[in-house]
């Protein structure tokens, strides 16, 4: 009976809201619990400086995590994001320092470099049917090496021209932070509401079925890797603005932090399932953990051990959540 009524009427706002809360409630609870825990352990945790640290940490990782969510949804992987970010920052740094280019042109160039690297990842793995793991592992080395060559292995000091991107404005948030939020929202809409999003989920679920339904998966896959490259380019600029410099060593290991954030958000490494909003919560979990552990005085090795445990536990919890959801339906 209830099925009949809900079928004829479009689902109301309340059920949509319930669905949305249901999807994110676990992550929100985890976040709140972490904040409460760190708040009780350290009297300095609830302070402006903690907030600024976290807000500064987030944009670069969040922007790359958005692109990585897309890549994991199509059952791909990209290990090169950290290096591509460094290369994009390096090229932007050279452009601004040595060629005296204005910031907006440097941003343009950085994003172009990222787009090119990402598109190459996609084109090579699609054209030769190679595993993305291998292709992007190669790109990780290529981009890092290129970053060293471009900068002569020296950090390029850019200075104030780029700093404002990461400086707090009114309300204490930086332009980079606002940019990240805008990208998260936009990417969420594309994933859930556009043809492109529907195709990504389809390709991640069953690529051959998509092909035989008359959808060519290849351009979509290339586009997804290119988007992630573009995001890595943008993240490079943001990273450079935090340091006021282009460091060729920046972002070593960043790919792992990015993938961890996406996975904590519940996106499946097997493809076909994922959410950009959840990814953003995943980024928050990682950075709150990072800042909180620093506040309570945990050593670097301890921080890494705890972070590792959180990643594994998060995925186990997500698995149970998914099972329960399947049983209910």
């Amino acid at each position, binding site marked *: 009976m209830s099925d009949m009524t809900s079928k004829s009427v479009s689902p109301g706002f309340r059920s949509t809201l319930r669905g949305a809360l249901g999807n994110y409630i676990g992550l929100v609870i985890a976040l709140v619990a972490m904040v409460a825990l760190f708040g009780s352990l350290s009297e300095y945790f609830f302070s402006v400086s903690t907030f600024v640290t976290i807000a500064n940490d987030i944009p670069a990782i969040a922007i790359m995590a958005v692109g990585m969510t897309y890549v994991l949804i199509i059952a791909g992987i990209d290990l090169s994001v950290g290096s591509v970010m460094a290369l994009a920052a390096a090229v932007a740094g050279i452009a601004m320092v040595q060629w005296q280019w204005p910031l907006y042109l440097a941003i343009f160039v950085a994003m172009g470099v990222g787009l090119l690297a990402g598109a190459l990842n996609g084109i090579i793995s699609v054209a030769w049917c190679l595993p993305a793991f291998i292709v992007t592992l190669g790109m990780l080395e290529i981009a890092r090496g290129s970053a060293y060559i471009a900068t002569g292995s020296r950090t390029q000091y850019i200075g104030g021209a780029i700093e404002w991107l990461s400086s707090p404005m009114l309300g204490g948030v930086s332009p980079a932070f606002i940019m990240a939020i805008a990208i998260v929202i936009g990417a969420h809409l594309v994933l859930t509401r*556009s*043809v492109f999003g529907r195709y990504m989920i*389809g390709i991640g679920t069953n690529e051959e079925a998509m092909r035989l339904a008359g959808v060519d998966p290849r351009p979509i896959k290339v586009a997804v890797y290119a988007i992630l490259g573009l995001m890595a380019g943008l993240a490079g600029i943001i990273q450079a603005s935090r340091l006021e410099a282009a460091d060729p060593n920046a972002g070593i290991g960043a790919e792992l932090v990015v993938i961890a954030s996406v996975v904590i958000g519940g996106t499946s490494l097997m493809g076909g*399932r994922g959410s950009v909003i959840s990814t953003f919560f995943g980024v928050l979990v990682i950075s709150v953990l990072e800042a909180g552990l620093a506040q309570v005085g945990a050593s670097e090795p301890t921080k890494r051990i705890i972070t590792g445990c959180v990643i594994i536990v998060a995925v186990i919890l997500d698995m149970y959540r998914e099972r329960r959801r399947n049983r209910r339906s």
Partner: protein
Amino acid sequence: MNPMPLLRGEGLGKTYVTPVLSGVSFDLYAGEVLALTGENGAGKSTLSKIIAGLTEPTTGRLMLGETPYAPASRHEAERLGVRMVLQELGLVSTLTVAENLLLDHLPSRSGFIRRNELNELARRQMATIGLDYIDPRTPVGELGVGHQQMVEIARNLVGDCRLLILDEPTATLTSREIEHLFTQIAALKARGVGIIYISHRLDELAQIADRVMVLRDGRHIDTRPMPEMTQDDIVRLMVGRDVREELDRPRRPAGKEVLSVRGLSRGKAVQDVSLSLHAGEVLGVAGLVGAGRTELLRLIYGADHADAGDIFLDGSSTPAHISSPVSAVRQGIGLVTEDRKAQGLLLTQSIRVNTTLANMAAVFRKGWWQPASERQQVGALRDTLAIKAYSIEQPVGELSGGNQQKVIFARWLHRDCKVLLLDEPTRGVDIGARADIYAQMDKLAAAGKGLLMVSSDLRELMSVCDRIAVMSAGRLVSIFERGQWTQHNLLEAAFSGYLGTGNAQPEAGSQH
């Protein structure tokens, strides 16, 4: 019949969200074949999984001989001699036949496998089911699906076996392999093994079953000795109503040509095939497995590339350029694939997503989703096709085979193709859903679509099609008009390409 049953089930029930099995009681005696039949979703698989220890019953109990029997796992059931050959193959494709057969007790000395002993044991095991011509050192992945199925069966005959469950064992076997299987079943019976045989194929049941047990909607309908039942009786019990097969329906009026194929070839699989398909007709393609039928459909659909030949659409005199499924769909051709799980459906996605996949333009405006419109369109198709699901948001992986196939039909109805290629559209589909699918094909033909249908079930082709093209060894050997064909001359044509070469691989479906 022995007074003491080998296995007795009392009031067995299983409830997931809704009951899928309720109050089923039965006896199985040593040395008999009890056929278990019913539509898909009738509870056959659930019942057999309970017996094999793959799932536990919600209610009721089992007695194995005189002791209560409640296996907690497949392993425990196997220890007690209760074995089940699963529909899905459980073989490791990179290991050899011998390694697969003896996987859980490989003969070894201090951890190292004793190859010769292993292969000899395996050879003997394969010989018991007449497959001694397969080298036990062959990796399983190199065997055809039919042979893999036989290896799977052989594996379950290793060691102690008191009760064997066979779930649609012949679905992928050739008739020669089926013969071997039936001989083996007879030998097992003689050894006193009780066999539960699950199948849709009523002619097979008549050959080997001693008694037949019919389930419908999770309930036990009747169990009777096989000789007392006609096929019609069984069908009536399964469906709960009379299903009439219209073997002599009139030919549909054919319109203008919508698809024409001239000299299409690809290697040895498809050689110089020409045919034409008209609006409003159903053209069947009969043939044995490996005759090139699926390959022909894939060539027309652009999924594979032809070495030679042309395809013409809508009576045009210039060849159509179909380089990929994308361009095929764009030009109004749809394909219902043979393997719907691997090639047709997004199993974890909803009915809604699967239905609109081939025609996104109808549910997106300028690239953005129109949820209400999509729900309305999919809801209407679900009603038209009588897809059984609690909601259009239900993942298609949870649906029965028949309903999954209806979802694929819904996809092409939504796309509104003028030519529909159907590859075994009723494989693994129960009788009730089959009738719905035939009715839908009828409607499509009446609406002026051209349907090209491959099937291994000759009776099905004879009841549904207006013309039947017969392929044999890659060639199209003849096309029969409705009224001209008999089962005999269709089969004769299907075998004709293999005469004298000695490599005919007749298949199960052609043996009706």
